[in-house]
């Protein structure tokens, strides 16, 4: 059954958009940390996107995507009123949320949107949510307003200093951890969602502090239901499937090096696919 797009909002024109989909079955079950897999056309591929928000009463789910290649570029041509051929979900294990005191939620790039749903869950569980978000510049910061509504604190970093701290999110995060420790605050958990290098940097930063740290891994997926092993990642001594065992894992156990390599498995074909798509657009 095709799923209608109710709203589309261009967050960063041509690069990042938000879609609200009418998907009552998924909305009724989706929890923070879940994702969906969608397919746009009969010749399309299956791509995973995190559920950034849900409204069970209205029966809607929200997706936020960054245009990086063929399928996301194709998705960017869809408007409110159009329908998406296949939407499957909710997939993945939901975030493990319990009252733990202070939770620092770190988001980078489109990961900020995905992190939003997790932060919201922690806030509902009564945790003191500190959102720490970063982007290259102010105009690329996402979801700041939404996060302000649910977080006790929002800390911002931009590479060019156009807003908040000038520098990396990890620098802001470290300051905040230090500050917490000095004040005797119990930091129960740190959650990081964003580009793999960012998640790895957060893992390295928090390791010496021994604070539980969770990352959401975006390995390449096909079925998303545990039948192919494309999404496998090494976590500690074990090989886990991100789609069914994750996508969230203990950051201190993840082999990020391997994960980053595996993400490049199809880079040549992805470029080919994108060029093929662009040629087709120009002909149409």
């Amino acid at each position, binding site marked *: 059954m095709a799923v209608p797009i109710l709203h589309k909002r261009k967050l960063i024109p041509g690069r990042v958009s938000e879609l609200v989909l009418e998907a009552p*079955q998924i909305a009724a079950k989706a929890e923070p940390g879940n994702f969906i897999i969608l397919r746009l056309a009969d010749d399309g*591929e299956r791509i995973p996107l995190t559920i950034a928000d849900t409204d069970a009463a209205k029966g809607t789910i929200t997706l936020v995507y960054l245009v990086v290649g063929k399928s996301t570029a194709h998705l960017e041509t869809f408007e409110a009123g159009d329908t998406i051929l296949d939407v499957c979900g909710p997939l993945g294990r939901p975030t493990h949320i319990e009252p733990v005191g202070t939770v620092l939620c770190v988001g980078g790039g489109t990961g900020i949107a995905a992190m939003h749903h997790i932060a919201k869950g922690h806030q509902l569980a009564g945790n003191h949510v500190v959102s720490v978000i970063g982007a290259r510049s102010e105009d690329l910061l996402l979801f700041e307003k939404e996060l302000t509504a649910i977080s006790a604190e929002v800390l911002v970093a931009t590479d060019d200093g156009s807003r908040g701290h000038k520098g990396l999110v990890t620098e802001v995060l470290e300051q905040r951890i230090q500050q917490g420790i000095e004040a005797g605050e119990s930091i129960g958990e740190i959650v990081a969602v964003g580009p793999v290098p960012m998640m790895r940097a957060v893992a390295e930063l928090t390791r010496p502090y021994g604070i539980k740290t969770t990352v959401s891994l975006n390995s390449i997926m096909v079925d998303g239901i545990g039948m192919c092993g494309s999404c496998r990642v090494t976590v500690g001594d074990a*090989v886990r499937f991100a789609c*069914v065992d994750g996508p969230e894992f203990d950051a201190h156990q993840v082999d990020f090096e391997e994960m980053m390599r595996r993400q*490049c498995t199809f880079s040549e074909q992805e470029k080919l696919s994108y060029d093929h798509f662009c040629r087709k657009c120009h002909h149409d």
Partner: protein
Amino acid sequence: MTKKKSKILPRRSMPMQDPAARVGNFNEVANGYSLELAQEEARRCLQCKTPTCQDGCPVEVDCKRFIRELAEGQVEQAFRTIKETNSLPAVCGRVCPQENQCEGRCKLRPTGQPVAIGRLERYVADAFYAGTACEATVGREDCPMIREDLRVAAIGSGPASLTLAGYLAAQGVKVEVFEALHLPGGVLSYGIPEFRLPKSIVRTEVETLKEQGVEFHMNWVGGKTMTVGDLFDQGFKAVFLGLGAGLPRFMKLPGENLIGVFSANEYLTRVNLMGGYRFPDYDTPVFPGRKVTVIGGGNVAMDAARTALRLGAEEVRIVYRRTQEEMPARLEELEHALEEGVQLEILACPVAFQGDEGGRLTSMRVQKMCLGEPDESGRCRPMPVEDEAYDLETDLAIIAVGSGPNQILLNATPNLGLNSRGYIEVDQETLETNMPMVFAGGDIVTGAATVVEAMGAGRQAGKEISRRLLKQG
């Protein structure tokens, strides 16, 4: 019909695409008999007084009768005969391991030339055009009206669920099939390649079921989108679990996560379900391999190897721990693979994958094996030959060493009773699980088996469910 034993003609061979041509395309390899060839082959049947062929068939097709009908030119009658017990003959005729089933028990088997029962079944299924959906599903012209108050849910849409749906629809029971992927068919859609089982056949079977009133819900993940309990809350009277054994097994070897090492399931899913062989017209990429190694000796390994050839590999090797004789693949698939140029590296067991600095696979370390005493399965146990290991150059390795139960629904249904191997435990007679009115069948109960065994289970569960529901009224 002559029964002179002395003059048994040779088994009619089936017209095939030439090996050199077919490695360049994904069209079906075997073209099927003509009416003439089919009748010649049918006439080879001895019409035994006590036919044993039927005992070899898990769904008990009355082979003797349909073959006689075909020999007499009554294709329509032959179709009805097959359909009495087998709802997917076009599929079974193509993919059953006949040498272990019907043809394995044929009285002519000792001559090495059993009646080509599978090919005849395929001929009848392809040749007969059914007038009504009921006729196409169960070989009867009319089925009772569907009773919307008796709703049965089937989770998974492989051959087990499709057979259950056809059986129940013919009894007037409403079936809704729920599938996690975007296309129905289970392994028939995502696993078995187009050149062996054209997807149009699976589509036709599904369309026929729809005409019969069966509803299909795709992109619906049991245990995630809804639980088994949710289905009963929605008014379903029974639930059938046909989840399959799609969990790919890896070997836990060093380097197994290098770029270029894939499970057969991923490789075949990209090609079949996602149409990756038509990349870039289709979006899903398939990893291109020049020197391909496939690990395993079953149908899955054969399918992966033959697919790699068709996608332009220079060299494809099947690496297997035992010898060609022990390979569990369907005989015809192994023969076709060899004809097409697949090479066998027997008595060889991978021990490590090796890669370059970028994490890309470059070679596989292989341990030489020899055969020891037979094990519990009766096959000789492979044993390592000391100090004999070597490297095989390879840039694409495909692992086809078996599979496990699909997990998602099992994880979400902790009350469901499982056996020690992690598959669903059922009552052998009724196929009911430990949860009342929840039934299961196919690979999720037996572990990876065959299409026709899954169908047998779907039929068995269908019988039990209709008996209970229709008695209740």
